């Protein structure tokens, strides 16, 4: 009897959390007259919405921008954070723990505080309307990922590194030929996390991007929402088709990299 209750509750959860996805795909395939009808299946079936929105806005350009920015952000964050995390995990020197405390403290710092001055920095460099500010900061590592990768490096067997040191291996060699291959699962976690973060972010594109040709997908989607949504042309089926196009890559990413996302989420709180 108790099992039945648990499974009934799980069924409710599945429907509640799955329904919005089903609804999104279904409504994006309905015509304008039926987009609000909430029927499970799109009748009449109007896949033409996807063609129409594809022709109305430069979706392919935006997807390309998002892929480029996302890969740059993820690669930069992974490489730089691994470097820094290795420094914190493998070397003993004065001031190290204090500095690591500062890294942890920056995680708590509200991003809103540096939003304006960092924008002014990029403006002074003449790069404020390019895509560079969307990813270049990751070249210096990011606090949460440094924390996460340090955990990984600390978990590696110390003796292996000591033995290699005795054999005269340089710190760089220890890092590239031993630590990185061993910490690969951690690197994947950082890469997929940052890829997702960059793919879904609206704040930075809103601040920096002016030219629609440079928009990433979320910024483009906001433009679609402004133009075809409420107060606009009220063509919601186009908004939803574009929303589905923006969402599907993330769903696929999650399905292939699920355990990495779960691992990264869980590592957020291990002290």
């Amino acid at each position, binding site marked *: 009897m108790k099992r039945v209750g648990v499974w009934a509750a799980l069924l409710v959860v599945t429907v509640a959390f799955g329904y919005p996805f089903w609804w999104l795909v279904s409504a994006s395939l309905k015509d304008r007259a039926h987009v609000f009808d909430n029927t499970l299946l799109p009748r009449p079936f109007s896949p033409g919405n996807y063609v129409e929105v594809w022709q109305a806005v430069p979706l392919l350009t935006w997807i390309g921008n998002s892929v480029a920015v996302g890969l740059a952000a993820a690669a930069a964050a992974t490489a730089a954070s691994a470097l820094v995390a290795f420094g914190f995990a493998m070397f003993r*020197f004065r001031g190290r723990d204090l500095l690591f405390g500062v890294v942890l403290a920056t995680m708590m710092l509200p991003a809103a505080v540096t939003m304006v001055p960092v924008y002014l920095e990029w403006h002074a460099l003449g790069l404020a309307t390019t895509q560079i500010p969307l990813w270049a900061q990751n070249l210096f590592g990011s606090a949460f990922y440094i924390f996460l990768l340090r955990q990984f490096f600390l978990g590696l067997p110390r003796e292996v590194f000591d033995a290699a040191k005795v054999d005269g291996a340089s710190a760089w060699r220890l890092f590239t030929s031993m630590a990185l291959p061993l910490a690969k699962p951690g690197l994947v976690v950082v890469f997929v996390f940052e890829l997702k973060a960059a793919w879904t972010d609206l704040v930075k594109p809103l601040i920096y991007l002016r030219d629609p040709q440079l928009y990433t997908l979320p910024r483009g989607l906001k433009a679609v929402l402004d133009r075809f949504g409420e107060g606009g042309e009220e063509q919601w089926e186009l908004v939803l088709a574009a929303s589905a196009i923006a969402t599907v890559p993330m769903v696929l990413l999650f399905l292939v990299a699920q355990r990495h996302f779960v691992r990264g989420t869980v590592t957020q*709180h291990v002290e």
Partner: protein
Amino acid sequence: MTVSGREARAGWLFLLPWVIGFLAFTAGPMLFSLWLSLTHYDMLKPPAFVGLENYREALADERVGTAMWNTVFFTALHVPSQIVLALGLASLLRRAGRGSGFFRTILYLPVMTPPVALAAMFLLLLNGQHGAVNGFLGWFGFQGPNWTTDPAWIKPGLVVMGLWTVGSTAVLYLAALTRVPVERYEAARLDGASPWRQFWHVTLPGISGTVYFTVVVNTIASLQVFTEAYAMFFGARAKQSAEGDAALFYVIHLFQEAFGSLRMGYASALAWGLFAVIAVITAVQVRLSRRYVHYEGDRS
């Protein structure tokens, strides 16, 4: 050079990227912003020093008051509802046995949705006349409110929408629950403790460190709420109406002052105001945690 000297040098070389980034993108900007907050700066003329005028203006600005009230009100609803639902879902998934992987996927998938897509979807799902949420409430005889247009219901609507992305917190709790020693439940059962009492006296103390962590992190994030609300109620066709005011959160106001009106000095003062509020709230939470959080058994 000594061994430890060489080790120190190598260590610092590895840390170098972060040190440069910290100076260029965190510490430097913070000092810069502190100074900017004492100036008028519109990016055309050089900054003009005005002392504390921006702060005085912010304290007197009605929109700042509205924005702060909206933000605190939203946070007070959003954080507890997230924590309670996540706890419930994690406890439920813990009982799912081998099926828990599937349900974890279902719970986490919404977290992957780009917030702008989320905004577009929920503008319709929460629609007063045609929305599925009110359709569902209608099955039980409730007449749902106009979540997206009635100023009194816009913030609760955003809270409801936030529940859909509770998965990351739930997954965190699920991991914490698996670390609570089974023997404690057995001991409690031997004492004849009901499931509710077990939850209250075994589960909650066992994961209180994790709960505390999520309360602090969610509160900080919630006080900076921006994307979904901005995507739904602001932008190119910004509504100069009651709806816009009801969804005017602090960071949205800051964003508009900075990048809409180019009042960089004033926006910097607003940012430090938010920083102060967040610091005070976090400090209170840290104090309270000393009384309620048990760390033993929650470490891994």
